[in-house]
């Protein structure tokens, strides 16, 4: 039996625009994943604590306020501190092209921008997910 892939979808920072996050969460559920949705106004600390407790394989971050350069890398950093660098972090939202490369360098493995079809996110997850058999 294949281990179910678990994904945390979280909104770091203070913006309350959760349309995208909810859409992704629901679409990933429909694609057969176990999705843990934490709601808005999460701190990097609470996102990482959740990721570890829930033993997720992926953390998807959604942010529209422009605070991604500060908050996304902080999540990756904290995961590392907790010895959980195997958890894959990806992000989405209003993120300018020029920010993508620096974010990737800091360990955010994919950035999905507005207009990205959900199939792109699923392809990413499928290409990265662990294939530990039971």
């Amino acid at each position, binding site marked *: 039996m294949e281990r179910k892939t678990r994904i945390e979808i979280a909104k770091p*920072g*203070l*913006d*309350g*625009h*959760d*349309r995208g996050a*909810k*859409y992704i*969460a*629901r*679409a990933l559920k429909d694609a057969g994943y176990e999705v843990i*949705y934490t*709601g*808005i*106004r999460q*701190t990097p600390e609470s996102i990482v604590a959740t990721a570890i407790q829930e033993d997720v394989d992926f953390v998807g971050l959604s942010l529209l*306020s*422009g*605070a*991604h*350069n*500060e*908050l996304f890398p*902080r999540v990756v950093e904290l995961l590392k501190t907790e010895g959980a660098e195997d958890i894959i972090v990806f992000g989405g939202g*209003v993120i*300018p*092209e*020029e920010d993508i490369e620096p974010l990737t360098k800091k360990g955010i493995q994919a950035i999905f*921008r*507005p*207009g990205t*079809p*959900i*199939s792109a996110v699923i392809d990413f997850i499928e290409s990265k997910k662990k294939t530990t058999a039971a």
Partner: protein
Amino acid sequence: MQESIKNRKTEWEESVLNKVLQKFPERKETFTTGSDKPVERLYLPQEESKGDYLEKLGFPGEYPYTRGVQPTMYRGRLWTMRQYAGFGTAEESNERYKYLLDQGQTGLSIAFDLPTQIGYDSDDPVSMGEVGKVGVAIDSLKDMEILFSGIPLDKVSTSMTINAPAAILLAMYIAVAEKQGVTRDRIRGTIQNDILKEYIARGTYIFPPAPSMRLINNTFEFCSKEVPKWNTISISGYHIREAGSTAVQEIAFTIADGIEYVRNAMSTGLDVDQFAGRLSFFFNAHNDLFEEAAKYRAARRIWARIMKEKFSARKEKSMMMRFHTQTAGSTLTAQQPDNNVIRVTIQTLAAVLGGTQSLHTNSKDEALALPTEDSVRVALRTQQIVAHESGAANTVDPLAGSYFVEQMTDEIEKEALEYIEKIEKMGGMVRAIEAGYVQKEIQDSAYRYQKAVEKGERIVVGVNKFTVEEEEPRGLLKVDPALRDVQIKKIEEIKDSRDGSKVEAALAALKRGAADESVNLMPLILDAVHAYATLGEITGVLREEFGEYRESIVL
């Protein structure tokens, strides 16, 4: 429909239409509006359309205001062109406001950063990364003084997008005006002050519904006596639509919010006509031109009837739905951003044909970042071209009498009323929100829409059709991350220079007042603001007393 027209229609379908359809089938089997309402091939005069003209449409400036709230509409005065702006520090935003006023803008619209909107100072740990990002950072009266320096507050009207801490920002505005020598009865403007849609769609809430509603009542009461030209609330459908609702849901949920505010204010003993005239609304303008125009017309009619019939308003002003419009941010695409100028043009027309009182047009680069000065100018020019060159402003309610638009208006009204009734049955909007009902309805619409785009059933030009390989534009406006340090330093300076005992006394008085529901908190907040208590300190005291709201959603 008249019998003769009905007969002719059948004849026409049989003799003309069917032949054509056999040879040339239509592009799609069914056509729908942007909100997924079915659209018929052809609209004809409705059966009773003549008899109830006066009742349903009437004259502009007269009940039920379907055709507009003023008799001459834009022939008298154009709508207020008001660009929402603000970023970084108060100094930077002040410069942008002066630029906009120079460019012919007629009102200010202040965007605050998220920490300000949620009542945190810039030095609070949760403010990390957010200071100055989506708007200007305001920590104390000092920032507000800088924000409006050199802008005479008796000459401009100012709209502030602030909700949970609206009372505090209004107090700061009053304080700045008085320091300029402008008395509070002369200032004009709007605070958004609409907490219900924050719970529903926008997320910048602080306190639970009951104390939040009290703060709103406090501003209603205070302004009705002391700041008579101030619009005390802007009941907003904009963010509900941005969250993915349909046009019908947008006006239905907004009006249901309005009902809750009116009922709440009346329950504290305010007379409906004492405050209802200062209620204003805020809607979205999407791409489906005719549906949108019909939406505004339907909303005006519904509101007028509710105010008159349900709340027994007597003053005409209490029944008039005046609204601000903003073009739809969610329709802007990061791909081929120039196309956004055209989208915004259509949306501008929709708002103007729908009779808006003021308008913000989005800039083409907003799907990517904060707008640059150049793109803000194009957005403003779009309004000016529609105003001065298109002719749309030359007559009142130009789309009236279009078979299509009239029928669409009726349908939207009917469907919105069904929602409103359902929410009333649930015990009102607060209940419906706590049950997660409204959020779920919006979420489902958003999900349906997005699925349709993904499947290509709905075309978004440049995104899922007519795409090109393109270079991303560079040179987007960026907020300096070091800005937070600047703000933190300012807070430190304030805290060093102010009279600490005065602050303490003011905050203690506020806390006592908060514990007593019968106290109007506005004067106490004004005292605290004058003493240079920070926004975070004032909100903090209220948080202790009121508690905090927690998200209530159904997945």
